[in-house]
């Protein structure tokens, strides 16, 4: 689950290697937020995308905590 959350935050490799190409094939959400904010200078939309990423990661983190709850683990055992 942590790996999934970290993978959602990948930015550096995309920026250095492909810059989102070919034909937007490697545009991840983080890179989309960067492109909208700094290339298209649409700060508000970039921030909105960043908040969408935050919400998704937060939901995954909640799921992660729920799955690792001691009561749930003992119930399944």
């Amino acid at each position: 689950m942590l790996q999934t959350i970290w993978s959602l935050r990948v930015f550096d490799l995309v920026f250095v290697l492909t810059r989102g190409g070919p034909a937007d094939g490697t545009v991840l959400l983080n890179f989309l937020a960067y492109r909208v904010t700094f290339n298209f200078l649409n700060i508000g939309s970039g921030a909105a995308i960043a908040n969408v990423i935050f919400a998704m990661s937060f939901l995954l983190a909640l799921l992660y905590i729920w799955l690792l709850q001691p009561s749930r683990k003992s119930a399944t055992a």
Partner: protein
Amino acid sequence: MSLLRSSLGTRTAEAGVILGLVVFVTWSAATIVWLLLSSILPQLSLIDQPPDISFVHWTLDNYITVIGSAAALGRGMLNSFIVAAFTTAMALALGAPAAYALARLSVPRSGTVVLLILATQMLPAIAIAISALHRYQPPRAHRHAFRADRGLPVVQPADRDLDSQRFLSGCPRRAGACSGGGRRRTDPHLLDDRAADLHPHPSALPPFSPLSSPGTNSSSR
């Protein structure tokens, strides 16, 4: 007297800890608060000096715009989920058996193996780009640009080279956002500027080729 001094010292220490915590939380939360404010404020309020963050300007237009552009957001979301799913699957498939073996079984030189696994984490991920620089040849579009930089005759690049330039610049081939050798544009009316495509500025090109070459596009031919 000494009791009073001791009590005063304890209270001062507590106050210092609380003050430090307040500063730390404020410093950490400021980024998130500003991100939230940026997403609910219009562009004009954001670029104002100082930024106008009054409640009357708050709007959800940015979220509506982002959700409305479902193609871009959906594509980014899909790519992110593909990357996340594959990395998680690979981490589970390779990491779980390895972790079990190293933790529960008597593996010879397990300490060295753990050190080697940790060593891969010490290597910055960006190092992949450095190895890619040596492994992959630059496309012909680069050679045209370098030749032009030295003052030699410029060879008109083929459409495939134009695709390469767009690819290197991160521009979609359908010309939705920008065109022309790394010069990004926000004005969609400037997208058909073929002259800029044929003579890109060399400084606009990244110094190495990416991991895959763009496919051919029948519409661009």
